[in-house]
């Protein structure tokens, strides 16, 4: 009864503020498209500048091997050594291939011909991958050269060693298949915690929270009255982004839908619980926003394994990631979408998530009550 009245009051307040409602519904969708389309770490079309001092047929063929690989696009030809500096400084090129004079001669004589690749290392992740690609292009080209050379010398050339790559789980290697299932956890951390925190802190700022605590309403009821409507909104939001994300980006879903929904529900309570917890710690709405950002959105983006692999982190900071429920949901979501794993693989993460949600809501309510009473 009382709970019904509280929930109605909360919904009335949300309805009265169309800006909030609009932002709460649209921002996750906007972010879904922005991040879904924008995050692709696949390294393709690397801008290559060529400084060919040899100007021979052989050097032209090496350049061709680079462009034919699909990883590099030839953007400019440099005429002087200083050109490489300028091409990299201005960002017009990510890599510069330098073929020294005498390249063709050395190869024709069956010798080793060095070529240089200058790579912009400021975004080291790209630089590493560019190096890997360049090495595989040059080594492959070099192998073919050696075979042709031996054949011309009249030697029977043996068959050679080949690598056969097989890709599992995400065979087309689409970046969105990785990004979108990880995005759900991030998007849900963007708003529910902040909205929940703001709605409680607003009552603190206006002093209406005291009115509630002197009324016959029990504090626990007040908190449940905050959690229920925002959890309902958050779950609706979750269903919306799950549906739009999966259908629009055509993400294959291999696992059990019920498991995904159960995990989502647990995660929703965790997000709202964080909001209540934040509201207990701060006095002003501005502080609530900063703290929500620092405690929810940023870590769920950076420390959940969404973009940055957790295994790349120092060990102590790997432990730090366990503080954020986005980490558990992320694992569950990717395992369900891409690997189609069953409960036997997911039980651990599900249990942790459930524990997290329950403990968080309990601790948050206790803290808020103590702070206000």
């Amino acid at each position, binding site marked *: 009864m009382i709970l019904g009245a509280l929930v109605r009051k909360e919904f009335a307040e949300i309805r009265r*503020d169309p*800006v909030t409602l609009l*932002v709460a519904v*649209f921002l996750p969708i906007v972010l879904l498209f*922005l991040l879904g*389309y*924008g*995050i692709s*770490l*696949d*390294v393709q079309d690397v801008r290559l500048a060529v400084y060919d001092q040899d100007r021979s047929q052989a050097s032209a063929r090496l350049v061709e091997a680079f462009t034919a690989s699909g990883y590099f696009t030839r953007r400019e030809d440099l005429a002087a050594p200083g050109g490489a500096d300028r091409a*990299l400084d201005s960002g017009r090129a*990510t890599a510069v291939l330098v073929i020294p004079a005498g390249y063709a001669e*050395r190869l024709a004589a*069956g010798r080793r011909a060095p*070529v*240089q*690749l*200058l790579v912009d*290392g*400021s975004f*080291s*992740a*790209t630089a*590493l*991958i560019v190096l890997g690609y*360049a*090495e*595989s292009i040059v*080594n492959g080209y*070099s*192998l073919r*050269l*050696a*075979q042709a050379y*031996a054949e011309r*010398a009249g030697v*029977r050339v043996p*068959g*050679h060693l080949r*690598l056969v*790559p*097989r*890709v*599992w789980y995400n065979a087309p*290697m689409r970046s969105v298949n*990785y990004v979108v299932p990880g995005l759900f956890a991030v998007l849900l951390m963007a708003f529910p915690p902040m909205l929940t925190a703001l709605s409680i802190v607003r009552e603190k700022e206006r002093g209406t929270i005291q009115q509630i605590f002197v009324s016959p309403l029990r504090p626990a009821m007040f908190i449940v009255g905050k959690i229920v409507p925002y959890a309902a909104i958050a779950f609706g939001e979750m269903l919306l982004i799950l549906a739009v994300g999966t259908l629009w980006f055509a993400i294959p879903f291999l696992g059990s839908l019920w498991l995904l929904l159960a995990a989502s529900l647990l995660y929703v309570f965790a997000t709202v619980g964080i909001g209540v917890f934040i509201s207990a710690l701060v006095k*002003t*709405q*501005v*502080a609530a*926003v900063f703290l929500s950002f*620092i405690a929810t959105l940023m870590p769920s983006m*950076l420390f959940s394994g969404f*973009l*940055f692999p957790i295994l*790349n*982190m120092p060990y102590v900071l790997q432990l730090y990631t366990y503080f954020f429920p986005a980490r558990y949901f992320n694992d569950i979501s990717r395992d369900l979408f891409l*690997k189609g*794993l069953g409960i036997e693989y997911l039980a651990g993460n599900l249990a942790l998530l459930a524990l997290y949600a329950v403990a968080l809501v309990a601790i948050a309510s206790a803290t808020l009550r103590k702070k206000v009473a």
Partner: protein
Amino acid sequence: MSTRFRAAIKKEFMQFLRDRMVVALILYLHTAEVMLCAYALSFDVQNLRLAVLDRERSQLSGQLVRRFTVTPYFGTLEMLASRAEADRALDAGRADLVLVIPPDFTAAAVEGRGQSVQILLSGVNSNTASAARGYAQAIVERFAHDLLGRRLAAQGFQGSLPEVALQPRIWYNPELRFRYFMVISMIVAATLLVGVVTSAASMVREKETGTAEQLMITPLRRDEVVLAKMLPPFAVGMAAALPSLGIIWWFGLPFRGSIALFLFASALALLVCLVIGIIISTFARTLQQALLIAFFVLFPLMFLSGTIVPIDTMPAAMQYLSLLSPIRYYMEIALGVVLKGVGVGILWPQFLGLAAIGGALVALGLPRLRNRLYA
């Protein structure tokens, strides 16, 4: 400076500094958060977990495996006994890739038959997978080249084989530390966040508490009110640039360019962010609205700036959109000045872009400020 303006500035500073929690969080964002992220986060595809299913266990197969493990790309190594174990290692996420060497590996090499080794890649993270494929390809091709040489020598072939040797040189960040990028990106992101949120909130707070009417009837001009509101966050933001410089030094980033130029760019970017915040405040009636709108604006600005992922990797349409994000220019300037050591001679388009966006925002915002500052 008139007395009333001085008084207004004093009041704004007092109000701004009174919310200790916000000041503490701003400092946290500019220092601890930057450090934390710089230590923890890296996109580098390195130390991949390699599992090997070696069905031959011969000298030659051991040589191939060693070719993988000596590179920095592949870290831990797990030896598997069966194909089922390979499945489990990939399912449980214990391995990023499995190298499968067939039982007739050496025999095929001796007889000069073509051989193939297989790698099973977990494609969950397509970025990691394609990088791993590239590395593996390079290693196997190099190994094949050596095998070819040995095989021909065994056949009595005299002389050497031609070979193209790639000599990489990494510029700006020769040890390829992702940290360098991360430090700069977090400093830039903190500037944006603090600038937009604090200024969006400050004006609306007056509306919500009803003091906007009082401001309206004071002799303070509107531009004085707005300037006084922008000063405290500007001062705090610029003060936060000092720990930022300290952090740059702490992580051993080579500060190759001019510090003055970096500070000038920071001031310019911070000002643009403050203007964005003030404009947002004219659209909101309550603090909650202002903060949520600030968030709505902030996130795309941040994402389209290249602080999270490089702009190069985005689709073309988004690359054009990113030209509208002032933070994109600030990011490019910061990377250019700190890592590349370039100056205005190369970065003038970025400065121009930042100034142009700032100018356009002021031009668009002025009429709104005139009509809606107190409304």
